[in-house]
Structures are given as C-alpha cells and as structure tokens.
C-alpha cells in the first residue's frame, strides 16, 4: 500500500463494514483503503450494491441501523477520528461534509433553504442570527444561485432539482469542510444540470483546495471530475490509479467489462457487450476472487486465492489491480 | 290521589341501582336519630312576644351558625309552588314558603301558620285561625288576605298540576286580619290534608307588588330560609337564614348550600371526600359500605311509597282474576326485597304502605306459594301459561333488577316474560296510553290522608288514572272509597279502608312488590335532621356540631 503522501488530507485505512441480513452479519465493505490530497478529487466507482456509498457513510458515521463499522481507521489531516457515533460527529465539525443523491429528500421540506444553511453557523459556530443569515446568502451566491437574497426565503419544493442540489452543497460548505464526500449527487439530475453541478464542484475543489471523494456508477462523470479513481466490486477495491490510465488500459477484467458495456460514441458500430452473469448477492459471495464466475480470464486458481491489490509489472507505481492475471492485461 | 310524578330527565340516565324516576315527592330521607322535637322554651330577652306558644321555641344544647353543604340529585327549575310537581322544586321551595298545616315526621298533620280551625255543622265551612306575630322574610306581617290570595291562586291556575286538589273549595274569604273562611261544595274529609300540600303554601298577596317572574327570582315567604337571584337548573343554590322567621332562634344554621349532583356515584364520593355533609337518594347497595364508615351516618326512613307490578286488565289474560292471583302467588317478595334492596325495604302486602293512615295489618294477602300459583293458573282460562311483556323504565337499575327477578319467578309457573325497557319519557307515555301488558312503577302518597292512594288506585271513574292504569273496576270497592271520603268519624273510616284493602288484595289488580324507605347519608357532624313519610325535610331544626 502506498505510504501516506505528505499533503494528504483524508487517509482511509482498511475500513470494513458488516450488514445484518435476517440474523446473519455479512461483510459489505472489505478493508478499503485510499488517500485523498487537498485540492484533488478521487472517484469511487462501482455498480449499486458494491458498497461504495456505504463506505462514504461509514466515514461520516451515518451508517443505517443494520450496518456496523467492524474495523478500519480514518485520518483527517493527520489526526485519527474516534469510533463512537457522537464523538465522530463532533470531531467532524468543520472538517468533513457530505452531500446526497436525491436533492428533494435531502432538504427539510418545512424550512426555508436560507434557514437550513444559516443553521450551521448559528447552531454549530454560534454566530448571531444576522451574521448566520448573511453567511447563508453568501454561500448561495457561491454555489451559483441567482438572486440569492430572495431565493433564501424559498422552500425546497419551490426550487428545481439542480437548484436544490446547489443548496445541499451550500449547506455542506457552511461547515467549512476540508473534505467533501459526494454520494452520487448528480444521478437524480438531468444531463444539462448535471454538467453545471460537476463544474461547480470542480471549481470549488480548486478554489477552496477541497479534497473530494465522489461516488458514482457513471464512468463519464468520474472522468470529468476526478484525477484518481478506485473501482469497487462486492465491497472490495479491485483497481486503483489515475483515471486516464485506468480508462485507457484497465488492469482488471471487471473494469474492462465495465468499459465494454458502455456505448462508445467513437465506435457506434461496436455493440456494447454487457458483463455475463449477475452481481452476486451479499449472502452468497463466491470464494477466492469474487468476480471469477463472470471473468473471461478466470482460471482454477482464481476460485481459491483472494487476489491482492498490488501494482502490475511495468505499470506506474500508483496503479494497482486485485487480479492474479493482471500482467496478462498489460500487454496490448 | 296525587301520585303525580314525572321525570326530571337529569335523574333518569343515571344507572345507579336506586330508582331514578322522581316522584312528585322525591324520596329524600335523612337518618338523624332524634326527631327535631320542638320543646317549649320561650326565650326571655329576645324581645319577641312571649305568646309564641309551645311551637317553635329553640333548643339550648345546639351550636349555632355554619353552612350545611347538601348534595341533592335534582336541581330546581322553578320556585312557584302552584306551578310545579318536580321533587327538585318541592324540596327547595318548602324551605321558603309554608302552608297552614304541615305533615310531621310521624306522618300526622300539625298546625303551622294556622293555630287551628273550626268546622260548621254541615261540615262545608272551615274557619282557620292564623298564628299571630308571623312575619314574611321582608318583615311585613302575615295577613288573612295573603292566605286567600295564595290558595285561590293555586286553585284557579288550571295549568297548575295540583289545582284539582282544591276542587272542593267554592270560595275563600278573609275575616279581619287573622281569620280565613273556606266554603266547600260538599263535606270532604281530606280537606285539611289537602291544605297541607306545598302547592297551598302562603306568599304575600299580589306577590308584594312585584311581577310574578320577578317575585319568584327573589321569593318572599314565611319559611326559615330565603333565596336571592334564583337561576333554574343551576349547579348549586344557596339558601340564607330568614332573620324574621316566626320560630325565634331558628334556623340554627346560617345557610344551606344545595349542590345538584345527578350521578349517584358522584354524590357518594363527594360525601366520602368531605366535600358535602349530606346527600339524598343513596342506592340501597351502598348502605352496607356506608355504615362501616365511622364518620358517616345512614338513615332509613319509612315512606308512603309502594312499588307495584301493574297488570293491564284490558287484555283478556289479565282480566282473568285467577291469572292475576297466580302471578301474585308466584312472586317471592321476600327474596326480591333481600336481593334488590339489600334488606332496606319491607316485602309488599296490602296496597297501602304500613306507614300510611288506616293501613290494615290484617289484610288477607296472597302469600308466595308456587303450588297455589299453579293451582290458580290451572283454574284460569290460560292453564298452560302464556308469554307476555314487562314494560319498565330502562334508565333505572332498580327496575331492571326487579324485572329480571320477576321474569325468572314467573317462568317457573309457565309465564314467559320478555322485558321491554324504554327511556323514561317513552315509558311514561306508553303505560298512560295503556300500550303495555305488565309494567313496574311506584305509587306514593303525598299527604297524610289515605284517600289519595285509595281513590287514585281503586276509583276507576274519577280516581284520575283508571285505577293506576290497570283498568281495575270493582263497583263495591269504588263505593267504599267514596263513602270513606265523606266519613269524618276516624273509627268508621278505618273500617272502610280495611275492607277496601282486603278486596283489592283478593282481586290482585296489581302486585305490591315492596315498601322502600327513603335513604339518606350524612356526616355525623349534622344533627337534628329528619324526613316525613311524604319525603319532605325541614331544615330549621338542624345544627352542625
């Protein structure tokens, strides 16, 4: 595993989360580690059910009742976050914030957006009512909401999807975080609004030197926003590296499968080939490498040994793949 | 017979075990041990004419002052004596207005505002001598003219429920200030008893110059108490002491706070909780538990009430004398009294209650005997029995209990009874239109004279209720009743009534079930409180220790 880079803001080591199904606990996130330096965006990509948003919620200790953080440590700008729910929340103030997928249900329907933003400076930072309101309007302007002072009095259901998502971001920024966790914030938006929000996030990343972790199942969104990317499958990291390299020359059959499954506008003729088989259920994960039943490289060995996330021969040091046949993918 | 009663709705819905239908004389009995004996003690130095005579002198061994808090079940709707028959009104206005004669606790007539009377040879003219020195609560003296005005008003007001009582009076005239002469159309033995009825209570002539409504808001009477600003159907009413009361030194207490609590359970709780010092209409079922409470006293007072199972002789099955006798034999009144009234009432025998004048203990009643019942039924036109319907007032727990006992006991001799409970107003309308087969209700005498019960329940033609709606029509019995009305010699009257009681007992038009007492409960701090068999209680003689 790569040593902790000097300007890393967020360092995640071996985070493991179990989920209760019936009365059996299954591992939904298996020893996930990654680092995010200030001012850079890391993409976390995988199908729904791959444990990517569960990982994010684990960092914020917002796990649903059935889930539990089994192991792992999180370092924020060097100091480790405590494990207990209450202590974590206090420790996170002004350090790490999170935004969610559905903008309407992420906002309190019976409170004006202005109040929902102002509540952070008012309650958390103890600013006065007037100062908090001004801060809220300022943040609304920052996230690109026109006529901010009037719109601050609006209720969530009176705003469009994109506008609402900007308010959610404004709320996150109100906590003055150094790290921003995004759980598929653009999935519920239509394409044009999605692009604007991504631009906003990119702009905030550079201007505020924010470290961003962006979870999505959309490779195109990842390519646009994130310099680095980790691919997750059944709770495990299967491939990491710089986004461009991973998309150009994937070192893990699953990533290859993902790329083949999308429509490549440059090659309209080639029909997309979906990955055979189905995503295995948490209760019945296959042994060894969990992707082997659907993997065209699968050999006898894959069914027994659990592949390690290790760099491939001849590839860049920060490139890694959890596949014992990774070297066979290097040669074009 | 003035067994007039009507529901004061408030009462009816309470499901306490005791009867809720209010007779004109609501059953109000209080258990003060000693009768308020009125000893003669003219009190020197009170500056009152010593000639007050024996009556009304105050006792020395009493503590004065204080307010009696009294929870009653019915709130008064008016204080006008001539215009009401509701018990809630009667027992409030009889503390404010007084008649010429009153009924004592022992059920006898006693001179009150009149000291006595003389009768003409043809027994058609009565001259009353008014008690001297009596004043109204506004200080003005009582005059003969007030008496003439009050009784005429009661007699003339056709809408007045009791106006028929004074039918015998042709004219009244005042003779000077202290004599009143009454001319009757024919000799009428119960006359003095009729005069003692509360409707004939005395008030200032022409309401002392005020309008009628205004007068009855702040009534002026000769009674021991006065009322200011009366509001009908209020939750409470305060009676203040009348400083001009003609019995010097009385009433001993300063005021009476009547609280009107229609729920039996609530009255009991307010007594046990110390919120009130006396309550009326105590359910028989509570007598046992109340007696255990050292701070409380329970009083059972004989009453002029008889609970009756009435049979509708308009129907063939009940026109048959043998059927009626069979039913009377079949009902075990001892068991009924034991279960339904917890031994507080006496089992029924003659249709006169034992406490009533001329009650004859030797009346040959039909005793409980299933074999006699079956034998009598066998002789009737319905030997194999029949099914019938028993109408009762559904709102009263006591009647429901009686009905279920009778239902069970008549089933034994082949008479299947189904119950038909109705709410009071419908129940009342049903039996008065003879729309019933059997029904249970109670009859009550309101004045000392036995004629009231005799004529109302036996005189089919002009008793006023077709023999208590049973349509029982026995000419010999009716003739005896009329003779008794005009008979002034007590011995002869007693013989006549004995005969009437035995004929009725044998004809069995209705089955006297029991003679219930008035049941009151009060704190032991209240002394000198008592009730007459008619249900009225005087408060000038009570005191609070």
């Amino acid at each position, binding site marked *: 595993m790569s040593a902790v880079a000097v300007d890393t803001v967020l360092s995640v080591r071996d985070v493991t989360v179990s989920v209760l199904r019936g009365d059996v606990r299954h591992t939904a996130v298996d020893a996930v580690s990654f680092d995010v330096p200030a001012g850079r965006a890391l993409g976390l990509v995988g199908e729904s059910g791959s444990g990517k948003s569960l990982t994010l919620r684990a960092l914020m200790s917002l796990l649903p009742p059935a889930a539990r953080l089994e192991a792992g440590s999180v370092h924020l700008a060097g100091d480790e976050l405590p494990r207990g729910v209450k202590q974590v929340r206090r420790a996170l103030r002004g350090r790490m914030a*999170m935004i969610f997928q559905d903008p309407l249900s992420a906002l309190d329907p019976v409170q004006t957006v202005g109040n929902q933003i102002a509540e952070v400076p008012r309650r958390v930072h103890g600013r006065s009512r007037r100062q908090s309101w001004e801060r809220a309007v300022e943040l609304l302007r920052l996230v690109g909401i026109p006529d901010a002072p009037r719109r601050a009095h609006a209720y969530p259901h009176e705003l469009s999807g994109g506008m609402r998502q900007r308010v959610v971001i404004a709320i996150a920024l109100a*906590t003055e975080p150094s790290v921003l966790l995004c759980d598929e914030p653009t999935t519920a938006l239509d394409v044009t609004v999605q692009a604007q929000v991504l631009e906003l996030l990119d702009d905030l990343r550079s201007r505020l030197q924010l470290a961003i972790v962006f979870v999505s199942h959309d490779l195109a969104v990842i390519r646009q926003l994130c310099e680095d990317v980790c691919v997750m499958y059944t709770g495990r990291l299967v491939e990491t590296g710089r986004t461009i390299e991973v998309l150009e020359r994937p070192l893990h059959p699953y990533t290859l499968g993902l790329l083949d499954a999308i429509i490549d506008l440059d090659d309209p003729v080639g029909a997309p080939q979906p990955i055979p088989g189905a995503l295995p259920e948490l209760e019945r994960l296959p042994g060894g490498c969990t992707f082997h039943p659907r993997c065209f490289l699968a050999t006898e060995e894959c069914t027994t040994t659990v592949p390690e996330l290790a760099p491939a021969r001849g590839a860049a040091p920060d490139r890694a793949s959890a596949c014992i046949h990774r070297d066979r993918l290097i040669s074009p | 017979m003035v*067994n007039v009663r009507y529901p004061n709705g408030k009462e009816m*819905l309470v499901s306490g075990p005791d009867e809720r239908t209010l007779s004109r004389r609501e059953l109000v009995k209080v258990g003060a041990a000693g009768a308020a004996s009125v000893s003669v003690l003219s009190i020197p130095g009170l500056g009152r004419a010593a000639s007050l005579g024996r009556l009304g002198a105050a006792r020395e061994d009493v503590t004065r002052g204080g307010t009696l808090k009294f929870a009653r079940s019915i709130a008064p709707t008016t204080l006008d004596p001539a215009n009401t028959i509701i018990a809630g009104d009667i027992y409030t206005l009889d503390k404010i207005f007084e008649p010429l004669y009153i009924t004592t606790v022992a059920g006898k007539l006693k001179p009150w505002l009149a000291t006595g009377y003389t009768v003409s040879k043809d027994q058609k003219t009565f001259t009353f001598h008014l008690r001297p020195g009596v004043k109204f609560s506004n200080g003005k003296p009582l005059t003969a003219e007030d008496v003439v005005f009050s009784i005429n008003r009661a007699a003339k007001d056709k809408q007045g429920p009791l106006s028929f009582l004074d039918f015998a009076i042709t004219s009244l005239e005042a003779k000077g200030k202290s004599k009143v002469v009454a001319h009757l159309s024919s000799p009428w033995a119960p006359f003095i008893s009729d005069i003692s009825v509360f409707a004939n209570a005395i008030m200032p002539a022409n309401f002392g110059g005020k309008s009628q409504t205004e007068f009855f808001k702040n009534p002026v009477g000769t009674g021991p108490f006065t009322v200011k600003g009366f509001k009908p159907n209020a939750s409470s009413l305060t009676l203040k002491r009348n400083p001009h009361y003609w019995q010097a030194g009385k009433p001993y207490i300063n005021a009476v706070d009547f609280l009107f609590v229609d729920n039996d359970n609530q009255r009991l709780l307010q007594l046990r*909780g110390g919120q009130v010092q006396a309550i009326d209409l105590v359910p028989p079922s509570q007598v046992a538990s109340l007696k255990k409470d050292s701070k409380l006293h329970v009083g059972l007072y004989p009453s002029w009430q008889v609970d009756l199972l009435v049979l509708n002789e308009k129907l063939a099955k009940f026109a048959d004398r043998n059927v009626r006798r069979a039913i009377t034999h079949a009902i075990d009144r001892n068991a009924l009294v034991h279960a339904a009234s917890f031994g507080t009432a006496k089992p029924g025998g003659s249709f006169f209650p034992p406490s009533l004048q001329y009650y004859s203990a030797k009346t040959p009643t039909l005793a409980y005997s299933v074999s006699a019942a079956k034998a009598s039924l066998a002789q009737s036109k319905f030997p194999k029995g029949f099914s019938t319907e028993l109408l009762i007032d559904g709102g009263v727990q006591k009647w429901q209990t009686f009905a279920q006992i009778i239902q069970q006991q008549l089933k034994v001799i082949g008479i299947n009874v189904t119950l038909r409970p109705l709410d009071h107003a419908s129940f009342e309308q049903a039996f008065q239109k003879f729309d019933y087969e059997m029904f249970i209700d109670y009859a009550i005498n309101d004045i000392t004279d036995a004629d009231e019960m005799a004529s109302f329940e036996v005189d089919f033609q002009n008793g006023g209720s077709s023999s208590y709606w049973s349509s029982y029509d026995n000419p010999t019995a009716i003739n005896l009743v009329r003779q008794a009305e005009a008979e002034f010699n007590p011995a002869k009257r007693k013989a006549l009534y004995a005969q009437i009681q035995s004929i009725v007992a044998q004809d069995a038009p209705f089955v006297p079930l029991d003679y219930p007492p008035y049941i009151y409960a009060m704190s032991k701090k209240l002394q000198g409180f008592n009730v007459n068999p008619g249900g009225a209680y005087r408060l000038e003689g009570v005191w609070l220790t």
Partner: protein
Amino acid sequence: MLRYTARRLAAAFFVAFGVTVATFLLLHLAPGDPARVVLGERASPQALAALRHQWGLDSSLGSQFTRYLDGLAHGNLGTSFINKTSTSSLIRDRIGVSAALVALATVFAVIITVPLASFAAVRKDRAADHIVRALSVAGIGFPAFWFGIVLIEVFALRVHAFPVGGWGSSTETHLRSLVLPALTAAFAIVPILVRSLRVGMIEVFNADFVATLRSKGLGERRVLAHVMRNALIPTLTLLGINVAYLIGSTVVIERVFDLNGLGSLLLTAISQRDFPVVQSVTLVLAIGVVIVNFLTDVIAAELDPRIRLE
C-alpha cells in the same frame, strides 16, 4: 386566505343547517311528550293540549321548523320547556365549562402524546418502544369513564389532590376540578395519537434529510426537533378529528364528574324531550366541531408550506 375562509364558512353554514334538520327530525321521531313531562301523569288532556298549543307543537312539522329557523335568524333560541327560561341563558352559563374541559383535555393529550411518541420512536424496537406500543394498543379498548372512576378513587378520595367532582366556585377551584375530567377525556384519544405520531416520526427519521441534519453537525436534540415538526403535521389532522370526538364525549365525562356543562345539559334535555334546548345545544356543539376542523386545517397550512389553502 380570505377566499378560503369564505368558502369554508359556506360549507359550515350548510353543515349547521344539516345538523339542525337532523336534530329536528330525531326529536320528533322519538316517542315521549314534553307536555306530559311538565304536567305529569295526573294532567288533564285539556291542560296537555293547552301546553302543547302554547309551545306550538300542535302545528305542522314544517311550520314548527320554519318558526325555529326564523327564531334562529334573530338569535332567539327559544325558551326551554322544562326550565321556563331562555335556552340561550342556559347555554351561556354552561358553555364555559364544556369549552374549558375540551381545551384542557386537548392540551393534556398533546403534553402526554408528544414525549411518549418520541420516546418510543427514538428507541424503535427496543423495550421502551414495545411498552409504549402495548399501552397505546390496550388504551384504545379502555372505556374512558372507567378510567375516570379509578382516577377519582385514587386522586380525589385517597390523595385529596383534586375534588371528587363539581365545578367549584372560584377560578382556582374551577381549574382544580377540571384536571381529572380533562385527563380522562385526554386518555380516550391519547392511544390513537401516540400510535400515529410514533409511526410518523419513524418515517421521518428514515428520510434522507435527517442524514443532512446530522452531517451539518447538529446535536441529536436539534435533529429530534426538526423530525418532530415534520411528523406533527399528519398527526395534527388526526388530533382535529379527535378533538371533535372529544366534544361529543363531554356528554359522558360531565356525567362521571358531575360537571354542569353543555354535555350534561343536553343529556338531561334529550330525556326530558326539551326540544328547544336539545336543538340549540346540538347546534352549538356541531358548530364547535366545525370550528375545530377549520382551525386544524389553518394550523396545518401554517406548519406545512407544501399545503396551499386553495
């Protein structure tokens, strides 16, 4: 808002008219004759007929009804047959008692429901939650008057904290005599409200915006306040319906605690067939229900911006 109030006023007028017609028919269908109630058994047919004529009961139902409506229009509710005074004075003396009872009962209901429901919702599926749910389920099957009797036995007779019944004379005793009846009345509707609020809160706790609240760094108490405000709205309409039910149940509560309110007056009047009193008191109670429903909708619109009073 004005247009909405006007529309609701028209609907209320229709409801009041409907209630008046229904009561009028009910009264005239029921057997039992008020004249006989006043004059008693011994009354002569002529006296009965005269009284009925005086009350106008011998004229056709139609004309009686129009006469009543005409009186209503001039604010004259007629004179009580039994008490020989104006119905409006009877109602005026007693409306305060019933209104205070319903108001205090509503306050008690809210004070008991909110903590109980949030206590259960926060500890979902733990011991506390099961106890509260079992209690609220059992509570529905519990006759309110029975609970009243138990309250009297304990708090009035043994602990002497409150009077056994009656209305008392000073405002202080009025309040003390209202506590037990209001608690009894509240108890009749608390089970239903607790169940509704608990479910509402659990649903809101699962909503995404609670995660936003927590990620904002707010303490759990602030989060609970937000959740409560959202969950109260559906329960509020339920409270409105139940307060209307409360107005009806004053009839029973006033009987148990001997309170001289409109409820006991109505019960008496029905059994005495005191037509004008029954007619007017039922109308007043019905208007009370309509007002409560109107207030509920207005408050709901205040609380929830998504509801527009069209």
